[in-house]
């Protein structure tokens, strides 16, 4: 039984090896993602979020809807297992926690401002900025994957690395944010719709 499993694993690995992208492939991905990000004015997508803490038996799963409107409006709305919406808009952070509304001005806080920019950037995946990140390109299980490691030590206190997996069209399929401890948040997007008008209500608290 174990031998069969070992052979199967070997075959899977042989079929989908984890390998580095060539320089050309990396440049092609960059250009594709940039082009897509520029031509994408709105995005709506469902998401499933898995919070992994090493000491837990199971990841904490939550689901919801994400909406993005260029240049930097993001609505991140959890529907299960709790109702919670966070809205990044005009350098402010609006929270609707099951009816309890609050607001945070990001303009005054450099770190939150960066966080906002990062969240916006990670939705399109256009984070190819090598002054802010160490960037590594790879192919995993046939998917194109990019690792972004923040250089700013103040930021890397929160997140050690972003792993972004891209579709063949250059859209973000999956985002993994890894904390210094190794615990991580993994977000898988589905039902992505681009450039369709989004009702204003989505971007209000």
């Amino acid at each position, binding site marked *: 039984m174990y031998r069969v499993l070992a052979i199967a694993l070997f075959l899977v690995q042989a079929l989908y090896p984890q390998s580095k992208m060539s320089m050309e492939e990396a440049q092609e991905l960059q250009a594709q993602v940039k082009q897509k990000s520029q031509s994408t004015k709105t995005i709506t997508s469902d998401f499933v979020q898995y919070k992994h*803490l090493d000491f*837990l*038996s199971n990841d904490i799963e939550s689901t919801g809807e994400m909406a993005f409107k260029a240049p930097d409006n993001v609505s991140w709305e959890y529907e299960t297992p709790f109702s*919670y919406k*966070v809205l990044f808009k005009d350098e402010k952070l609006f929270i609707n*926690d099951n009816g309890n509304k*609050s607001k945070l001005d990001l303009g005054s806080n450099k770190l939150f401002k960066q966080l906002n920019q990062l969240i916006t950037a990670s939705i399109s995946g256009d984070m190819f900025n090598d002054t802010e990140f160490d960037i590594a390109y790879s192919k995993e299980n046939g998917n194109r994957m990019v690792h972004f490691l923040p250089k700013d030590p103040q930021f890397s206190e*929160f997140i050690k690395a972003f792993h972004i997996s891209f579709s063949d069209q250059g859209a973000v399929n999956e985002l993994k*944010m890894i904390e210094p401890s190794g615990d991580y*948040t993994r977000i898988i997007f589905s039902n992505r719709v681009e450039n369709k008008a989004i009702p204003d209500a989505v971007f209000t608290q």
Partner: protein
Amino acid sequence: MRFLLSSLIVFFLGCTPYPKKLGYSPDQSKSKTFTNPYFSDLQKDYVYKANISAFKNEFSGILVIKKTDENKHRVAFTTELGNTIFDFSIGDDSFEVNHILKKMDRKLLLNVLEQDFRTLIKENIAFTETYAKENTKLLKAKIGTKNHYYNFKKDTLQSIAKVGNQKEIVVITFSERSENLARHIQILHKNIKLAISLQAI
């Protein structure tokens, strides 16, 4: 004279033992030990949506409690988006900070959190005094240096009050209980403006 009399009354009321204040009388009950069931299952992840109200500021996030070993628990708090704010390991005689945001790394805050969570998860409790009133019981135990009163109704733990100078300092209330799980927990501080409300998800 009237002022003196009312002062004396207030003074003596202040000194009235906590159980007596609540109308409890001493009881010669035999149950001197108790196992708090609410965080006792090694197989279970206890996950709560948490709302914290501290000095007029409101925070929310996810509080996770896991029994990792006999007499050892892990308590972690993350934002809804997944960033870990703090992560502690709490044993009978130990307290380790695995992670805390630099901005929150203050001894006073850590002490408050440690004491609250230690009381919340402490499993094996030895009682020194027992009181009764109708179908409820009040049992006294010492955790750290402070007296704690465990309130039971028909043998089910309802609340834990940390008491100093015969006054409540912190009250932890367990509600929406079913099969050793309290789906709603309220941690209310009486001497500082801090309240933590937990709802199981």
